[in-house]
């Protein structure tokens, strides 16, 4: 238990983003408590600082009192530990010593408290008996409570991270991940979440290893613990031994070598041996990621998520701000296409600017196109920015979450209005762009024939489509196992979409997670998906697999697979027919 001889602990979770990293744990849920400000205080102001500390302790006692008072009767017998904490709050080793330190050294209360607690913890560390283990936890909890009151930290603020760390959290909300200083993070691990949760997507976008669904990682891991994370296999090692560290470092090196190799060859087109060309593109969220798409050999942007500029700020972005960002991306990629998806907000991405009215079931609520059609001015602001950016390259527009034909009509009408308004003001724009829809709601699949007559292309969003088809939340680990892209139900939905597109001579693309997993490439080729778009990191591996698969054979294979009714059987068929090809092309850790 104590620092000198820590046992190595291995825990298994769900692999969310490949790669290996070694680093110190950073507990997100205690944020505001672990990073403290340090400053000196003049002699004449020290008594005021002491008062501030006393007030924080008093508030902590009041809070605990309130907890005890409000505890339901059946819990009253468990309030002993809270009473213990109340005594600890005023313990002279903690309370008096902190005050003395403030007065003697003139340091601020947070710093003083932290030093006192560190001293207490090291005192306990020298005691071998395991029964004392929980004692430090009590002291830490008590000091955390004071610290929270001192810094006024109710909210998580991971924006302030100033060291290279591995984030450990129960879960990371999109609003939280959007605040992270990306270059600071080595990896993510979370208790909750499934493979397709937002945390996983963000991690893959940032090309950092992530393991999710670990259940009790936050309980096993303490701040600053050394961690080794294997996102490729979904393993986290706490307090890794020297041997483990060596092993992980070697594998990290091998993985990076492999990435270098496949990235080098990724700048060529991906054509099947029988001459079938499949454009492979990148999904992006930030304009900066365009570089990553290009570096990994992406031939365009198949999905440009536009929510980011609406998050982590207090008001909606202006048309000019949006235009600047879009133009940046469009110019860099030109003449390759950039598919801009209009705002998909109020789903699992709470809008920072306007998040007051919480819906009980946001995934089924007023989100994406529904939200935009309800807020036509907000929507038109974005549409105008897109039309203006289209002057600078090859722009496609995608309307998300379409579930019926009326929504397409309404969206197209607003697009026309946006163009007319630009006409009147004389701002240059390009109205001659392809407009398509995300196919991610089962009703849109059922209506695919009708919808295909109204739009220029379909872009299949498998994440939501699979969730809505099975009525599961991919972030819920109790049902995450039902998220099965190869399930006959999904295969048939995809077939229906691809057929409708072909019958009506429009494009059919895929930008969901499924497109970025090399394992599914044979099936997607066989279904006749024309373009694949994915997180930039996956582009080289997917291209590599495309080059190894005969498109005609894949078509025959899919026709056979579509006869099956059992997902296990389809999975086995993929293994039988393509297992060895895939094993040769895809990195195995």
């Amino acid at each position, binding site marked *: 238990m104590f620092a000198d001889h820590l046992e190595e602990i291995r825990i298994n979770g769900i692999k969310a983003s490949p790669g290996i990293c070694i680093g110190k744990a950073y507990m997100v849920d205690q944020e505001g408590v672990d990073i403290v400000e340090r400053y000196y205080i003049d002699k004449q102001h020290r008594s005021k600082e002491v008062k501030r500390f006393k007030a924080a302790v008093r508030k902590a006692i009041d809070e605990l009192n309130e907890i005890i008072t409000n505890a339901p009767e059946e819990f009253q017998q468990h309030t*002993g*530990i809270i*009473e*213990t904490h109340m*005594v*600890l709050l005023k*313990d*002279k*080793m*903690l309370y008096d010593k902190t005050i003395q330190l403030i007065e003697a050294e003139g340091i601020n209360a947070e710093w003083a408290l932290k030093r006192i607690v560190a001293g*207490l913890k090291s*005192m*306990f560390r020298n*005691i071998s*008996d395991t*029964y*004392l283990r*929980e*004692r430090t936890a*009590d*002291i830490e909890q008590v000091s955390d409570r004071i610290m929270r009151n001192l810094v006024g930290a109710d909210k998580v603020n991971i924006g302030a991270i100033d060291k290279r760390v591995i984030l450990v959290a129960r879960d990371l909300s999109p609003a939280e991940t959007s605040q992270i200083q990306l270059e600071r993070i080595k990896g993510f691990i979370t208790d909750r979440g499934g493979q397709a949760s937002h945390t996983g997507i963000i991690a893959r976008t940032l090309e950092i290893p992530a393991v999710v669904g670990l259940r009790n990682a936050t309980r096993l891991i303490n701040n600053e613990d050394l961690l080794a994370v294997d996102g490729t296999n979904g393993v986290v090692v706490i307090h890794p031994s020297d041997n483990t560290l060596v092993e992980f470092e070697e594998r990290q090196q091998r993985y990076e070598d492999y990435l270098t190799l496949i990235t080098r060859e990724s700048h060529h087109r991906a054509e099947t041996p029988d001459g079938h060309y499949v454009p492979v593109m990148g999904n992006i969220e930030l304009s900066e990621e365009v570089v990553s798409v290009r570096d990994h050999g992406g031939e365009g942007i198949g999905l440009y998520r536009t929510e980011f500029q609406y998050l982590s700020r207090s008001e909606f972005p202006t048309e000019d701000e949006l235009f600047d960002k879009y133009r940046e991306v469009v110019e860099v990629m030109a003449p390759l296409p950039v598919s801009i998806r209009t705002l998909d907000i109020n789903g699992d991405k709470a809008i920072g600017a306007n998040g007051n009215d919480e819906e009980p079931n946001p995934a089924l609520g007023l989100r994406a196109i529904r939200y935009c059609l309800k807020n036509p001015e907000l929507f038109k602001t974005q549409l105008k920015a897109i039309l203006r950016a289209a002057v600078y390259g090859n722009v496609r527009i995608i309307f998300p979450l379409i579930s019926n034909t009326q929504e397409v009509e309404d969206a197209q009408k607003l697009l026309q209005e946006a163009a007319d308004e630009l006409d009147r003001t004389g701002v240059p724009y390009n109205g001659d762009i392809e407009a398509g829809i995300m196919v991610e709601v089962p009703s849109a699949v059922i209506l695919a024939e009708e919808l295909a007559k109204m739009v220029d292309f379909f872009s299949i969003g498998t994440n939501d489509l699979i969730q809505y088809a099975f009525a599961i939340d991919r972030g819920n680990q109790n049902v995450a196992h039902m998220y099965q892209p190869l399930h006959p139900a999904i295969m048939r939905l995809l077939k229906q979409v691809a057929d409708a597109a072909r019958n009506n001579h429009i494009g059919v693309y895929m930008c969901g997670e499924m497109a970025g997993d090399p394992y599914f490439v044979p099936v997607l080729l066989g279904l006749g998906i024309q373009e694949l778009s994915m997180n930039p990191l996956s582009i080289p591996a997917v291209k590599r697999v495309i080059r190894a698969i005969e498109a005609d054979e894949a078509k025959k294979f899919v026709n056979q697979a579509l006869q099956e009714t059992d997902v296990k059987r389809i999975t086995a068929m993929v293994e039988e027919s393509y297992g060895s090809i895939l094993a040769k092309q895809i990195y195995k850790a």
Partner: protein
Amino acid sequence: MKQLARDVVIINKLGLHARSAAKIAAMAGEAHHPIWLEKDGQRVDAASVIEILTLMCPQGTQVTVVIDHPDDTGILNAIVKEIESGFGEI
């Protein structure tokens, strides 16, 4: 000044953990003069939970409760009684 002391054995299963230590500390905090807890020649302030914890007293440990002033005899006896009763948690 004359000190008074009483020996007592920790009988509750968890020993002097945070909760039991807190009970002692709360009682000792009522005293007008210092109250000490001793084990194997080590002495700590009985009014501090944290100090008591550092004594590390699992079940079976013999400790000595010491008061500096006879005025606190009542508190001395109350603490001993609490320890002897196993803090009501056996």
